[in-house]
């Protein structure tokens, strides 16, 4: 297992986990989200290709009501 930080909270995930698998596990597959990894935007087309590394910092966001 490796440790990553998602939206400020640490989480243990298996090694060689990619972003698509992470979204699947978080029940966010198919939802419209955007992801920043270590300060860089990850394009949606790259989710399967991007393998998570120990200590990765992720922000996963959605659109919500706001002014």
């Amino acid at each position: 297992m490796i440790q990553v930080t998602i939206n400020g909270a640490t989480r243990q995930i298996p090694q060689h986990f990619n972003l698509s698998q992470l979204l699947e596990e978080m029940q966010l597959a198919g939802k419209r989200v955007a992801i920043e990894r270590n300060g860089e935007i990850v394009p949606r087309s790259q989710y399967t290709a991007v393998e998570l590394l120990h200590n990765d910092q992720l922000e996963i966001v959605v659109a919500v009501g706001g002014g």
Partner: protein
Amino acid sequence: MDNLVIAGQTYASRLLVGTGKYKDFDETRRAVDASGANIVTVAIRRTNLGQDASQPSLLDALPPSQFTYLPNTAGCYSADDAIRTLRLARELLDGHDLVKLEVLGDPNTLYPNVVETLRAAEVLVKDGFKVMVYTSDDPIIAKQLEEIGCVAVMPLASLIGSGMGILNPWNLQIIIDQAKVPVVVDAGVGTASDAAIAMELGCDAVLMNTAIAQAKDPVLMASAMRKAVEAGREAYLAGRMPKKIYTASPSSPTTGIIGSK
């Protein structure tokens, strides 16, 4: 047609509305429909970890195919956070680059931090964003934001969520007179007359959220705001009569009054 044009895009409605503070998505949708708005602001927030993925989302209630989304940076207190938020928004909305920049300076008043706002605007414009920018009613800052390349300047009428109306029409007038990009009054509108006054001053549009969402009947207030913005715009275009004190000019004929000699 007297349309609103922002960054080359044409919009029939001069009322822009927020989508926060509603009871549920159904009320949001009915209020937005009643307002007639084409442009709706949305916020970008972290997903709740472990949220129910079957719950409807804002994008289901207000499909981006039917409305122009204006992702905002509400809640950001630094240029860096605002820039990161809007880069996420652009990815989230498939490259959509029309955004609302707001960088706040104080949690009690939500007053904008214009120094950080200027800094963020420069980076975002260089990065290809079309930036509609929330700012104070300082004419110099508004001018600088325009010179940086913002596509609209959006001065406050009064504090966000205060409903205090237009506190400094003279500053707004200076901003309107000097601006070559659309001026949108953003924040502070409390009721329909406030929106009408903003439009009569010559603003190009009005952006509001709380005035509608926190009304007792949000859908009815949305309808009132639609009419107020239209009425204010027509009055502006019509050109009001000059104000005159003590130069009485009756509307009815001054001759032929019965009993006159």
